[in-house]
């Protein structure tokens, strides 16, 4: 029994990604650098969300589903705009959604952050921006989108020559 429990504990610690690895502090400049890493390699979809934002929570699973369906064909980047006090809640949500990759936690003043990311963004959440392989913005929008919209915008850039 004891051996079994130890085995289960090892298994759990092995599959559970620590919170500080899936939600990493990032300034707007660091997000921009991260996006640029995939230039000429693959399209990138960046989604800005927060735990308190109902439309963000509703659309989040669509992106996770697309990330699985089009695995390797695009890079999915999540950026949380949560307040510091909600960091643990954000980590718990990410884990519940099955996120096992690095995502980001907004650091810095809103005005500078938003302006650095995109002129298309007024600050409303959720905000999504899609880059093609060349690193150009293909689409950007505020507010919740349906699964079909995300998929259609992604296919546009995945299938681009």
């Amino acid at each position: 029994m004891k051996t079994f429990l130890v085995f289960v504990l090892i298994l759990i610690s092995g599959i559970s990604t620590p919170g500080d690895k899936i939600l990493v502090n990032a300034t707007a400049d660091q997000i921009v650098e991260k996006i640029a890493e995939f230039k000429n390699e693959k399209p990138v979809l960046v989604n800005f969300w927060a735990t308190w934002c109902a439309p963000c929570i509703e659309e989040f699973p669509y992106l996770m589903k697309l990330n699985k369906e089009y695995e390797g064909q695009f890079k999915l980047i999540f950026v949380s705009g949560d307040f510091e006090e909600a960091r643990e809640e954000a980590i718990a949500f990410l884990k519940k959604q099955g996120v096992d990759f690095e995502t980001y936690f907004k650091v810095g003043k809103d005005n500078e952050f938003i302006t650095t990311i995109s002129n298309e963004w007024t600050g409303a959440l959720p905000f999504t921006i899609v880059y093609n392989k060349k690193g150009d913005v293909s689409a950007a929008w505020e507010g919740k989108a349906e699964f079909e919209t995300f998929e259609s915008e992604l296919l546009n850039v995945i299938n681009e020559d």
Partner: protein
Amino acid sequence: MKKSNKLILSLSAVMILAAFTQITTVDALKIGDKAPQTTLEIEDTSGRSLTLAGVAGDNGLLVMFTCNTCPWVAKWEDRYNGLAALAGTNSIGMIALNPNERIRDRGESMEDMKRRAQKQNYSFPYALDENHKLADAFGATRTPEIFLFDSNMKLVYHGAIDDNADDANTVEATYAEDAIRQLVAGTGVSQQETKSLGCTIKRTE
């Protein structure tokens, strides 16, 4: 039905769906634009029928899009009355508008607004923006979001209240206050537009 026909139909359905789900962007007022819909009648939480023109003071008008359910509003709300007091002493009228039509039955009804205004001791009118007519005319996208107009009802500042929703005590840039003071001093508003995170306005589809 042939396989190829089925494929064409499916593709057409996806294209139509994509066209209908395409998200439209709202064009916001630009600095210098006149305040729109100033004679539209709106009802506030005290039951009064108001217009933007009627609320405006001798030196201008401060319009704030806000709501009852947004955590960013809750964070910034402790600065609302101070802003209203500053506007008032400078002969600038202030009004808060709730444009969240899609979720009127989920915390954004007039009754909810009345409770909010009472609980938070709002010292300014809080009116329901029916069918987000004013939010659409202004091109507002989020709550809270501020528009400041001068005595000619021309836009002189648009954006955030200040640079720190989380803590009023550690604010470094008091954008809206500065804009009011500069407007009244006649020096011109130094930072005319700012951006801040906020909740999307819940428009009807």
